[in-house]
């Protein structure tokens, strides 16, 4: 039987390595446990609570990307025997690993990785060997897929404990795809998602989705921040509903959901793609308690002048009650809130540029 989890783990991937912070569940004081893979770019760190394994997507600069794992919270790391690789003859090479997502509770070795150029990889042995998803690699529309400004990245993976064969992913700038047969076939799920850069504003695919967020206990409800809007689905992406309402902008990158209140959703708007700065030079997280709509600005404790940029994977929530919210900036600040974003406290002020923030119970 699992023991009581009494620690919160905050993983911060940066342009110069990965940082591990821990706190007790009060989250009043954070301890920096370590800085690993120093100098390497870490787009994502994930803690697999099923095995107690820390996993990091990293880029060795000139020397390519990989997924490494640690059993001792980042003190030592191990590379896979078969890293994520495109097959010979495909003409493709993994440029960056964007996402690592542990599989479902009853498949302890399964882990997924999303990469650029967009494709999904799966490991069945905790990250030692990786296999490409052939159906996505050979999708009939693939030649028409276009990258977003950050590359053609598969950045979001949504699994469903109730429907173990379902996998839902998002790619920038391709859109949302869903499989009902564990990745054997894929279907686009982009109904009602607006795009501004095509003559047809509601195409079957080609949407620049920036991030999906969901509560694993209610996986049919998924929130989206895209290039051109903020959306929610209540039917696992059969239909998307525009929930921008009173937000100051439709543009932003990160998205996160509250652990306890299933309709509470957090975004961090930027003025637009023309400037990519917070509205008025003042950064704020915005929350809705209605699954989108009636948005409230959450900026108590944040600097008045705060030209923060928060990348798509750099805002997250924890599993505590009240829910904690965290974000890291491209200028190296790490902020946290212990009360659903109502009050903000600085956790660290001078990290390297932050690429990702994720929180776990230990």
């Amino acid at each position, binding site marked *: 039987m699992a023991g009581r989890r009494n620690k919160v783990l905050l993983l911060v991937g940066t342009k110069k390595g990965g940082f591990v912070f821990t706190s007790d569940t009060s989250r009043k004081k954070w301890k920096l446990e370590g800085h690993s893979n120093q100098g390497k770019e870490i787009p994502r760190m994930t803690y697999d609570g099923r095995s107690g394994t820390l996993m990091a997507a990293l880029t060795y600069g000139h020397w390519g990307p990989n997924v490494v794992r640690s059993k001792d919270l980042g003190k030592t790391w191990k590379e896979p025997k078969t890293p994520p690789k495109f097959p010979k003859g495909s003409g493709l*090479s993994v440029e960056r690993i964007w996402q690592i997502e542990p599989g479902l509770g009853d498949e302890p070795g399964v882990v997924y990785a999303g990469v650029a150029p967009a494709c999904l990889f799966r490991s069945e042995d905790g990250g030692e060997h990786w296999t490409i998803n052939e159906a996505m690699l050979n999708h009939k529309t693939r030649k028409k897929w276009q990258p977003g400004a950050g590359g053609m990245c598969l950045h979001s993976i949504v699994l469903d404990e109730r429907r173990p064969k379902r996998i839902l992913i998002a790619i920038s700038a391709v859109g949302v795809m869903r499989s009902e047969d564990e990745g054997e076939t894929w279907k686009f799920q982009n109904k009602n998602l607006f795009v501004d850069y095509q003559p047809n504003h509601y195409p079957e695919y080609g949407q620049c989705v920036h991030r999906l967020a969901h509560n694993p206990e209610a996986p049919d409800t998924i929130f989206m921040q895209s290039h051109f809007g903020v959306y929610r689905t209540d039917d696992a992406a059969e239909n998307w509903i525009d929930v921008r309402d009173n937000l100051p902008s439709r543009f932003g990158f990160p998205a996160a959901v509250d652990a306890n209140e299933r309709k509470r959703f957090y975004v961090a708007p930027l003025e637009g793609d023309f400037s990519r700065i917070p509205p008025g030079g003042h950064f704020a997280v915005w929350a809705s308690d209605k699954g989108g709509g009636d948005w409230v600005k959450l900026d108590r404790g944040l600097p008045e002048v705060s030209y923060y940029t928060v990348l798509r994977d750099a805002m997250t929530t924890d599993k505590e009650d009240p829910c904690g919210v965290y974000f890291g900036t491209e200028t190296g600040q790490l902020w946290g809130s212990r009360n659903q974003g109502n009050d903000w406290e600085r956790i660290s002020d001078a990290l390297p540029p932050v690429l990702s923030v994720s929180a776990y119970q230990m």
Partner: protein
Amino acid sequence: MIRVHLTGQLRDLTDGAAQVEVDSAEDLKGMVAKLDSRFPGMGQRIMDDQEKIRQHVNVFVNSENSRELQKEKTKLKDNDVVHILPAVSGG
């Protein structure tokens, strides 16, 4: 014997050794495969998924950049000296 000079992050895989030796190899691709079997992960760093030398990695054979020779198919012979270096990029 082929002498291989390594730089930067590649030395993480060789316990810091800046130079290693390979008994023989037909070409650069074969040499990298031998290095990878001794130092797992070395191949992944030097070659991309299509087994081409990575875009920002330069491999010199007797001071000639292999891009000006036959790239990864550049033939090797006894006493050749190979340097594996990152391309200069950035300011």
